């Protein structure tokens, strides 16, 4: 029998004091116990630069733009650039795509990058100087990313590049209407401001000497040599390669393309060069590609924008002959495996020039003297830590086997920097194992407000075909906020308090600051908290006896 009630004279048993039920520890009923876990959001999982997207969106959701930007900068020094040119594997992976449309991660990233430039936000080197000096060969996204991270880790960094300005393909490949150069300049300047030394117009040829002079070397020379195709051609045929054309444009030269331009290839480079041709005054820019649109390696949006700008497409076609003012194409058809086979049907097209956009090869002359560096299929082989066969010589970006995108290159830069740092310290870089993926099934999407994606503004067509002005506009603070808040925070608590609220047993303690705890004294293990967590953060585990 219980001790006397605090009210003393209350009628026995029929009348009870509040708080007394706390003596009944219902936790003993439990066969399963909820646990707060972190799951890997699919966007983070997909980002080649390893950005913690969900986390920076979380900051942006609260208008914490600088914090959001800093979160990006922890992984990627190019938010404004990436917010324009990244192919957005994150958005492809985004769970919200299943619900309605993916979160416009990239547009928010651009907003944050632009905001940082506007506000003059800067980063600083906080790590103590290591006394080590690293040479980075190539000032493309990979080299710059490595330089940035190495500098932040306290190392001296020198970047050498053959070109007059840093940026690699960000400057000499990707056209300005997609990536304005002031943006590239601003984000590179920020790296320079950290104390990274740039030696431009400097081609590195003797790696042996550099390996002696520096404590470590990171190679990121990219792939700049246009791949040729064996097209039978007349003497006066004008055959150019895409990367050279684009580089020329960047350097202020007017490549002699003529009024009618045939671009051969179906990748993004083909689209870029065709759209550039239109801007340079070509009345007819036609892309010749041997398969169909859905099999084009170019991203759909690039193809769409090209079509909008008047670029024509000749799908299922190969160029069999080129001559002055004209090319012959053969119609193709796809076999059952989707492989294009010739049909024997030919057609002539008028073309003043043919621009080959069939991919690029790396110029690997600088490693040729090193026996311990392996080159296979025109690329340098590296291990899991991005080190070549030569100790202290690391490589990344387009010159190693990988998907050739700026984002991958940046990711390599970060990864290489961490491994170089570890190597310089005589350790190896250890990363915690990845969390389980926050798949769509783990979410309770009921709770997310209905919200269609924000569409970025676009330049009107007339100006698109006549100038190199940027085509795609950015978000403003309110649209960026809206877009950030479309994030479902997959696998990470968004502090919705659902768990705290739906527990019929008040067995969840809200600690504040986004932290919650299960009160094991009272949790009956019903699983409601886990079922009603929008972002799939709670897992029911068998109760251990």
């Amino acid at each position, binding site marked *: 029998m219980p001790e006397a009630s605090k*009210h003393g004279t209350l009628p026995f048993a029929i009348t009870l004091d509040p708080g007394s039920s706390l003596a009944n520890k219902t936790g003993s009923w439990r066969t399963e116990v909820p646990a707060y876990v972190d799951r890997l959001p699919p966007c983070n999982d997909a980002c080649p630069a390893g950005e913690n997207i969900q986390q920076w969106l979380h900051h942006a959701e609260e208008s914490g733009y600088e914090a959001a930007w800093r979160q990006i900068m922890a992984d990627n020094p190019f938010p404004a650039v990436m917010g324009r040119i990244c192919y957005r594997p994150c958005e492809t992976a985004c769970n919200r795509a299943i619900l309605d449309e993916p979160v416009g991660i990239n547009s928010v990233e651009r907003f944050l990058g632009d905001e940082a430039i506007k506000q003059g936000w800067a980063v600083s080197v906080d790590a103590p100087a290591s006394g080590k000096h690293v040479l980075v060969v190539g000032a493309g996204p990979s080299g710059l990313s490595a330089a940035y991270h190495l500098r932040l880790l306290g190392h001296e960094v020198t970047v050498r590049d053959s070109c007059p300005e840093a940026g690699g393909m960000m400057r000499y490949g990707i056209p300005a209407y997609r990536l304005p150069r002031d943006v590239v300049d601003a984000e590179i300047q920020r790296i320079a401001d950290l104390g990274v030394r740039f030696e431009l117009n400097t081609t590195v040829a003797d790696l042996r000497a550099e390996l002696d002079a520096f404590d470590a070397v990171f190679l990121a020379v990219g792939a700049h040599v246009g791949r040729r195709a064996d097209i039978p051609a007349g003497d006066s045929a004008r055959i150019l390669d895409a990367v050279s054309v684009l580089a020329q444009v960047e350097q202020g030269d007017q490549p002699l393309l003529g009024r009618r331009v045939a671009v051969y290839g179906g990748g993004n480079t083909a689209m870029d060069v065709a759209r550039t041709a239109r801007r340079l005054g070509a009345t007819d820019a036609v892309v010749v590609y041997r398969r169909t649109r859905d099999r084009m390696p170019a991203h759909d949006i690039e193809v769409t924008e090209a079509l909008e700008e008047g670029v024509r497409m000749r799908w299922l076609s190969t160029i069999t002959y080129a001559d002055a003012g004209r090319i012959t194409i053969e119609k193709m058809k796809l076999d059952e495996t989707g492989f294009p086979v010739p049909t024997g049907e030919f057609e002539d097209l008028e073309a003043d020039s043919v621009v080959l956009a069939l991919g690029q090869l790396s110029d690997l002359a600088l490693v040729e003297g090193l026996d311990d560096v392996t080159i296979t299929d025109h690329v340098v082989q590296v291990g899991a830590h991005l080190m070549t066969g030569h100790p202290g010589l690391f490589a990344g970006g387009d010159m190693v086997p990988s998907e050739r995108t700026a984002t991958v290159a940046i990711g390599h830069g970060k990864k290489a920097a961490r491994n170089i740092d570890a190597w310089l310290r005589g350790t190896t870089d250890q990363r915690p194992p990845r969390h389980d993926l926050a798949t769509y099934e783990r979410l309770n999407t009921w709770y997310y407000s209905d919200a269609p994606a924000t569409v970025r503004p676009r330049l009107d067509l007339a100006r698109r075909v006549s100038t190199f002005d940027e085509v795609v506009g950015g978000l403003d603070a309110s649209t960026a906020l809206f877009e950030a808040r479309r994030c479902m925070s997959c696998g990470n608590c968004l502090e919705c308090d659902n768990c705290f609220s739906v527990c019929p047993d008040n067995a969840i303690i809200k600690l504040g600051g986004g932290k919650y705890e299960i009160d094991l004294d009272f949790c009956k293990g019903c699983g409601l908290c886990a079922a009603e967590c929008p972002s799939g953060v709670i897992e029911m585990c068998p109760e251990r006896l």
Partner: protein
Amino acid sequence: MLKQIEGSRGVAEAVALSRPEVICAYPISPQTHIVEALSTLVKSGELAPCEFVNVESEFAAMSVAIGASAAGARAYTATASQGLLYMAEPLYNASGLGLPIVMTVANRAIGAPINIWNDHSDSMSQRDSGWIQLYAETNQEALDLHIQAFRIAEELSLPVMVCMDGFVLTHAVERVDVPEQGQVDAFLPPYEPRQVLDPEDPISIGAMVGPDAFTEVRYLAHDKQMQALDLIPAVAADFRAAFGRDSGGLVRPYRCEDAETVVVALGSVLGTIKDTVDELRDEGMSIGVLGLTSFRPFPLDAVRTALGGAQRVVVLERALAVGIGGIVAANVRMALSGISLHGYTVIAGLGGRAITKASLRRLFHEAAADKLEPLTFLDLDRDLVERELQRTRTTRRSGPAAENLLRDLGTRVG
């Protein structure tokens, strides 16, 4: 103040003087005049502050009283007969929760057959509901008992039922002494609840109690009624001191000392019995009367003391325990356990049947001669029931007994 008023009016005024804060009622004869009077007192503002709730049933009436009492208000209701049965469930609940509600039962028979006249079947059916039951002999006592009832109820945290004979008392116009408000206020302090629903000090009232403590809870309820055995006479004594008259108490013996025959009864019939006893005494019969004012708690000791010396006891009751006979008689016997005397149970005055002095005289004579059946139905029309019994023996579809009897009576009379 002396007033020539109906019994119901007297009770209403006594209740009003007791300053109830919530009155709730559902009409049923013969209780109606009481609550009509009270509703007027509340509506006119004479009785304030007080809420009069016109409920939709007796079940609700008692329930409203429960809520009001638990919230710390002095609560009152009144009912009778069918109404009392209809509130049986909350009746037990009110006592179980220890809520000091006061209720008038204007005693009336229970149907079928439906009958609006007086007997004690209604309150007797609820004798074990946990309520204290006090029976008024006169209108003055009915009035006085209500004032005492509030004090007893609130001191013990137990509900009290004041039973008064329907029509016989409720509708009888008599002279009664209605006390002054100041006197009542001095006698009856404001209600200080033992437990109350208070947001500043929340408690849970009405828990579910299992086998581990249920017996103890029940024991404590019984113990409270045992405490009432002391409290009821004490309050009656206080009342006498304050108001100068005898009302209430446990039992009221009348000419019992040395009586060979003692008649036990409750309620207004005591008056007729006393008159009869006076006559029989004058004629030399050794007879007395024991009036029971408190039936719950049942004053075993007081009854034993009053009856222990008698040679025979005649319990005259206005209710029938169908299948055995007496209700009061069984309780009286309990008080007399171990004492050997003649005991007679007389069922009288059911459904308003008049109990005449002539019948009583005959009855007491037979008793004094020990010629009485152990169970006697006073003034039972034997012929009538025999004919009906005969009919049911011979015809399967003999029809409803009550109607048959009426028809039979009609043919005989008409």
